């Protein structure tokens, strides 16, 4: 067993080296060519975006009404590990067949791609509640924006201080 794995080492090294070369080439390709959105696979790298750009892309020029007590946003004040930041969005907004929360957007301002998740509800859910664990790159505001079925937007926002970023190098 020991002997055979020893024998494999040179092979593995050259393989790793090959991998490294492939990585560099891919990086160079990224510089030169911008892949078209349709052709790109689902897991392809999305371009970086500022939070303003995200908000414009998602909502255009629609106004974001302050949510007040309609949306309760639960986040830690200080997140020691940016890789796992629990978030809870609880709202008292109506959830009836013709007036309901269509979507909740979770957006963290300082992330490379600010949109964390978008939750599309149906009235079957009974109420608009959602909890997940987020990755946060840096300290900054995290917003939960609720979009009603008639298009009204409500925004709740809280700042989270991140000790160690969770989005890798």
């Amino acid at each position: 067993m020991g002997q055979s794995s020893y024998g494999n080492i040179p092979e593995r090294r050259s393989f790793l080296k090959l991998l490294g070369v492939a990585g560099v080439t891919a990086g160079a390709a990224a510089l030169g060519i911008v892949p078209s959105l349709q052709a790109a696979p689902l897991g392809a790298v999305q371009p970086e975006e500022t939070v303003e750009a995200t908000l414009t892309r998602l909502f255009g020029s629609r106004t974001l009404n302050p949510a007040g007590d309609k949306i309760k946003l639960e986040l830690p004040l200080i997140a020691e590990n940016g890789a796992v930041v629990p978030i809870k969005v609880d709202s008292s907004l109506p959830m009836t067949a013709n007036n309901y929360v269509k979507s909740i957007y979770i957006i963290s301002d300082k992330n490379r791609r600010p949109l964390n998740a978008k939750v599309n509800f149906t009235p079957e859910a009974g109420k608009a509640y959602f909890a997940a664990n987020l990755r946060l790159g840096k300290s900054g505001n995290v917003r939960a924006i609720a979009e009603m079925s008639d298009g009204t937007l409500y925004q709740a926002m809280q700042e989270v201080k991140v000790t160690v970023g969770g989005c890798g190098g």
Partner: protein
Amino acid sequence: MSEIGKVRMRVPTPTKKGEIVTVRTLITHPMEIVKRDKVGKVIEKNYNFVYKVVATYNGKKILEVETTQSVSQNPLFAFPLKVDEPGVLKVAFTDTQGKTYEGTAEIKF
């Protein structure tokens, strides 16, 4: 890593018709994040992460979550469910490799 796609669900038992329960579901998944090489350039590849979560109850859609890479590894989601009748809750996770993982839970009174 052999456990990728293992879905766990926790559903409280509703006590009466029409009660809204909070369902919690967890999937084992790496949710790969964008990697960079030594000079800080983003490495282009097809990253493997869950991009769609669909929850249905007795075939009726409850909610759909569009997730991105900025959701933690082994993501945990909690969402409400209004239980009007006993049935089967199904949650399907789809990742960018085209794989779909499902978890089901039966709800009784």
